[in-house]
């Protein structure tokens, strides 16, 4: 298993947001996390790269394994972890820098990379994010001049440039129009060959379209997890069925 959580629990102060979540994800698969707003999807996602650490008062208990090693073990280098587990946010957040500098940002954090290699890796990342053709002539232009959908693909390229193993996406298309959304969904299929992807979505059609496995969260609990086709056609828990048939949420 690429990722495995064992009785993972999260508190914000003394409010418990996740209850004993057991969830496993195979390498090079796409897992969708679904459930109504506030059920803990983002909280779970932020455990995987320890971005929860940046929130005051968060306590995480239980086990979370990446390639079998505990992510929360004392002494873990969070910075190194985040280079292996990339993240794309709900709202596209490119830096107010050029397109090139955005993609190169992560690459420049480590030891110096020769210019030709840097150029190559930026192009590669933009190509994988299906953005290269649109921006190849304006790499020095500001990233803020791109459309919303392009900005989000730029953020994907920026995350891919550091060659992570896992890519976390928190409702990456919720602010985008259907065409931009379709572009990103299409992109995801190709990315699964190289990366293990975890995507949070409140859009069940999207989960059904892009993922191999779907996990349904409700009130901080993992209610059901199954291969996507099974979960949407034969949910075994009543709550799941109510949710996917649109009876609440």
């Amino acid at each position, binding site marked *: 298993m690429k990722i495995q959580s*064992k*009785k993972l*629990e999260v508190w914000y102060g003394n409010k418990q947001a996740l*209850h*004993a979540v057991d969830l496993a994800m195979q390498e090079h698969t796409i897992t969708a996390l679904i459930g109504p707003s506030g059920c803990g999807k983002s909280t779970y996602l932020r455990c995987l*790269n320890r*971005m929860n650490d*940046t929130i005051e008062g968060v306590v995480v*208990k*239980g*086990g979370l394994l*990446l390639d*079998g*090693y*505990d*992510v929360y*073990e004392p*002494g*873990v*280098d*969070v*910075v*190194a*972890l*985040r*280079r292996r587990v*990339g*993240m794309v*946010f709900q*709202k596209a*957040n*490119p*830096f*107010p*820098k*050029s397109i*090139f*500098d955005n993609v190169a*940002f*992560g690459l*420049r*954090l480590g030891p110096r990379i020769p210019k030709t290699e840097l150029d190559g890796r930026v192009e590669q990342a933009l190509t994988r994010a299906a953005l290269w053709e649109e921006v190849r002539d304006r*790499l*020095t*232009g*500001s*990233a*803020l001049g791109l459309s919303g959908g392009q900005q989000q693909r730029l*953020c994907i390229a*920026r*995350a891919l440039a*550091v060659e992570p193993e896992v890519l976390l996406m928190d409702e990456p298309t919720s602010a985008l129009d259907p065409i931009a959304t379709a572009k990103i969904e299409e992109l995801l299929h190709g990315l699964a060959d190289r990366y293990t992807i975890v995507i949070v979505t409140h859009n069940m059609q999207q989960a059904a379209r892009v993922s191999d496995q779907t996990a349904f969260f409700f009130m901080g609990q993992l209610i059901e997890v199954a291969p996507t086709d099974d979960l949407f056609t034969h949910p075994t828990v009543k709550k799941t069925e109510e949710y996917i048939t649109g009876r609440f949420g």
Partner: protein
Amino acid sequence: MEGASTYVHPVTTRNPLTGGGVRRAREAAIRGAFTLAALVSVGVLVGIFAVLFLQARESFGGNEGIAQSTLTPEQRALFTDVEFAALPAVPPPAPSVGRDFLGGTNWNPTGATAYYGVLPMVVSTLMVTLCALALAAPLGIGAAAWLAYVAPPRAREVIKPIIEVLAAIPSVVLGFVGIVVVGPALAHGFGLQSGLSAANGALLLAVMALPTIVSITEDALTAVPRDYVQASLALGADRWQTLVRVVLPAAQSGVVAALMLGMGRAIGETMTVLMACGNATAMPGSIFDPVRTLTATIAIELGETDVGSRHFHMLFAVGLVLFCMTFAVNLASEIAMRKSGGSRA
């Protein structure tokens, strides 16, 4: 807490995720540097307040309070003589005038031949101001970074207003502190005849600029969208890299504005430098020489000249030079802010 975890961490070989000790040490060092900057800033500002308070308390002791004043006779003499020491009792008419104004190194409006060389004062002004900025900028930005990134929210809420209030220290009071405390300390520490020097003025102006720089820089740092910080951290940048590569560039115009406001206040500042710098009109050879700035020259001499005299008009020319310098500073800051607004490759 029922249902709490019963999961036990597996006993494995060394977790390959652990490490990063060097980076952590570096971050701790930087954190320490910011904390130090904040401590020094607050310490200096509060210390000045304490000096004032202690000196003022003696005035309540009645007559013997003055007799027991901590001032040495020389220091006390300074209070009566400092502004007027450079002036002759009666300004004699100047029969002839030396040529050089901007390039001249001799300022002697009352000599047999009157010289109006303004260069020493330009150099003095630049020396005092730039040294002040060189001291205040790292300290102020460090303290602001501490407030914005390291300080617990509680401490921040208390310390930031304290620093801001200290922007209200009147300049004459700072000059007083310069004569009584900082100057003598400099003289003692560096074995100088008198501590009243460019260095003394620079230290005081740095203190004067500090609250402005800290407050505006901190505002600029906290105004940077959290999104940028999150994106940077998620890409594997540590907090230091995030500060230097993301937050400071995004806050650049605010930081430049903070420095320029601090510097603008320092260049135009009159009373503090007049009191603290020793007011020698000769070209300074080092930071420890007494100097007289453009502002101090105007303040000292204007009241003693005849309206309409050559000397009188020369002081206006000095004022024009001063104005050109402040204008240049403002222009430079404007350009810097414009530049940072656009995008670069």
